[in-house]
């Protein structure tokens, strides 16, 4: 399995490459009134309007400030595209299925729903984000 990796706070994450339409640098954004707090704004992606989700906030980490310039991972969905805003984009990694483990029972809350598990890399853990679920919970 191939994962598109990214950094979110102190954590190293990955999301199934197949779900990712593209990765783009920081984009100017229009804030959206009356929306949920996880929704940061709207991006113009070559004429397509994409909703940007603050992935940090969604996962219960400290949210992006207005001065932050997060990168966008564009996830393509049947109903359109959603951008997950992340700190930094990493490489696409081939992961070994045998190193996968489900999260421990002590993982609670929204993170439990969104994190499918972790690949044990030599120096750190690669957490796997469930892209479909993440799109779902923001809806």
């Amino acid at each position: 399995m191939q994962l598109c990796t990214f950094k979110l706070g102190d954590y190293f994450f990955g999301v199934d490459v197949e779900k990712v339409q593209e990765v783009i640098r920081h984009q100017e954004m229009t804030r959206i009134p009356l929306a949920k707090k996880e929704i940061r704004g709207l991006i113009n992606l070559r004429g397509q309007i994409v909703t940007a989700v603050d992935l940090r906030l969604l996962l219960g980490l400290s949210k992006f400030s207005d001065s932050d310039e997060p990168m966008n991972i564009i996830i393509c969905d049947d109903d359109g595209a959603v951008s997950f805003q992340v700190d930094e984009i990493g490489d696409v990694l081939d992961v070994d299925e045998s190193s996968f483990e489900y999260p421990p029972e002590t993982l609670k809350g929204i993170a439990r729903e969104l994190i499918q598990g972790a690949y044990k890399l030599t120096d750190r853990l690669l957490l796997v984000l469930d892209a479909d679920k993440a799109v779902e919970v923001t809806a």
Partner: protein
Amino acid sequence: MDEMDEMYEVIQEFIVESNENLDNLDNDLVALEEDPTNADIMGSIFRTIHTIKGTCGFLGFGKLEKVSHVGENLLSKLREGELPLTQPRTTALLQMVDAIRQMLACIEESQNDGDEEYLELIENLAALQIADGEGEVDSAAAQDDAAAESAPAVEDDEPEEEERVKPIGAILVESGDVSSDDLAAAIQQQLDGDKTAVGEILVNKGVVKKEAVDKAVSKQSEAQTRASTASPSSIRVDVNLLDQLMNLVGELVLIRNQVLQFGESFDNPVFSTTSQHLSQVTSELQEQVMQTRMQPIGGVWSKFPRVVRDLSQGCGKQIRLEMEGKETDLDKSLIEAIKDPLTHLIRNSVDHGIEMPEVRTANGKAAEGVITLRAYHEGGQVNIEICDDGGGIDPEKLKSKALEKKLISEDQAKNMGEKDALNLIFKAGFSTAAAVTNISGRGVGMDVVKTNIENLGGVVDISSKLGEGTTMRIKIPLTLAIIPALTVTCAGDRYAIPQINLMELLMLEGEDAVSGIEQLHGVPVYRLRGKLLPLLYLNKELWGEDSAENAATNSNINIVVLKAGELQFGLVVDDVNDTQEVVVKPLGKQLKGINSLAGATIMGDGRVAIILDVFGLAENAKLLSETAQQGAGIHDEQLATEEKEKVSLVLMRNPDGGRMTVPLSEVTRLEEIQKNDIESVGNDEVVRYRGQIMTLINVFSLLPERRSSERLIADGEKEMESSGTQQSADSSGVVQVIVCTKGDKAIGLVVDQVLDVTEEVVEISGESSRRGVSATAVIQDRVTEFLDIDEVIAMSSGKSKRRSSHSGAEA
């Protein structure tokens, strides 16, 4: 492409084509019922069913074939003039159309024609093939059936071949190479079982030369190619493809805007001509692509003749539906959206508009009512009218109905013009009662119709003349994809407001900006030509930030006057920019639920701007409540109060000046009783009352003194000062009694003075302050105790017991 895919495509095509044909069929059948001798319509109906039958046999949909086959048999008898077209026959054929439609839906979903057998329908259709009173036709029909079953292929291809390409035999006869007698003999031979082709038989018989036959064959194949390559004037295109095309054009429009804006920044004549050219081409392209999505409204209308026929027969009316302007185009998305509201309005016209035939003739009208559907373009909009020549709507009846339902006040009813009264039928809540049908109102769901049309950026209007009929007029835009909009700025963000909601722009300068906005109990309003315009501050509505102060520090105040249906309100924004055409893009599902936002668009600089939903804004600000339509805004509190139920209360005064109350529902009567009439029985005071002996309970002497709330006392003292009537009430020789019924016994509660009977919404604010009081509440701005009647009765019987035991001890 593999076989499965190919089969799938064939089936899809079959479904699309058949559905189209079925829509026509509904209309044709209704038209034929009116004009049974019209051979053209008959022929078209027959061909449609025949085609469906043939194709579904080929595709292996047995049930569909059975139903259409028996229908075809009936139709062929009708076509030959063997049977007359009667109402039951028309109805059965329409039912057959429904059944076919149902099976097609089933095929589309699950690739098979479903489990239903339609035996009843088949039987019915078969039975209807028997001419009235003629038994022997039955067997003929059966034979016909059998023949068709045994040799379906032969029969199937006949009519179509006839139309397009002539058989060899006919060509040979035409060219004079063969006599028709020879041909008939050859065909007979074929029918007897000879599988050889007609031409070959003829050559074998020696009646014609082989060359002549070859020539005829080549002539025939030529005709065949001509028939198949006759270039069609239209093609079928996948809707998704059109949508994508539309999107791309939308993008092109945006890029054009960007280029134009960019071009302004430097002065180059070549560039500006080029960009102007680009602009022109883009506009034309946009128009043309929009055109591809346009569909004639006739597509929606096609089902209405059937609807009117079925409904009017159902309620015993005679109604003719006339349609004008079927070819009027509007966007595909609107066609879909307008379907339901239109159907609703037509049903209403049939149901409530057109009178019963006997009523019509009594009023000197033709027994047959006419409903006219009319559509036309006007000023870049589509107008649709639904007129009936029915009884019309009586505005007075509407008013009294609305009064009865408490939708309007007496005053409003008095001042209401005819037009406003007619518009009452669009009010939510007007429709709910079944009784609506007994006035000539058309309330059922009309508020929904109105909302649906307004959601499309349209308006609906009604006019009616008593005795002459009613006209509903709908105006909708041609398309929803690209709309003219006003852009405004607020707190640094740009927003687009659909121009259809825009009334005017106001700018308050200098002194006006300070004094122009007045407060009506906390609600900001502006006097626009003498009428109060409620104001919303956009920043506050969207971000909850109180920008009223910001606006006040700003030297100018910009007010965008908007209308949401009947309601007008002013939206205060920081800046008004310009108007432009914007491409409406839907918001993602994360934002679907926010009803103040209609969508988003991309501005000339490439940034996204939100398109505001004027209805949503008004709704969120609670401007769209029922009372709000009178003009000014309304307080939340008031709204909340209105939702609660009112209770009727009897208010009375204590000897200590405090106020008490009992619900009117617990009170049987209010009486004044002469003191002289009061008698004593033991320790109880009684009075003869309506043939009973009624015990009197002096309420206030029973209750313990209250000391629980200083407020109560303070209130009491106030009242004391202002009243001083206690003595006078005593000296008047009467006591005031509240009569309650407990079980079947009347009990009189002697009170000091009954003040008032009032209707109040009760908000219980305090708990019981003393024994005999169930609760306290503020009523008419006064703290008031609720008397607990049961408790008081219990206390009184306890007291009398105690008293008697007392007296016993003394004795």
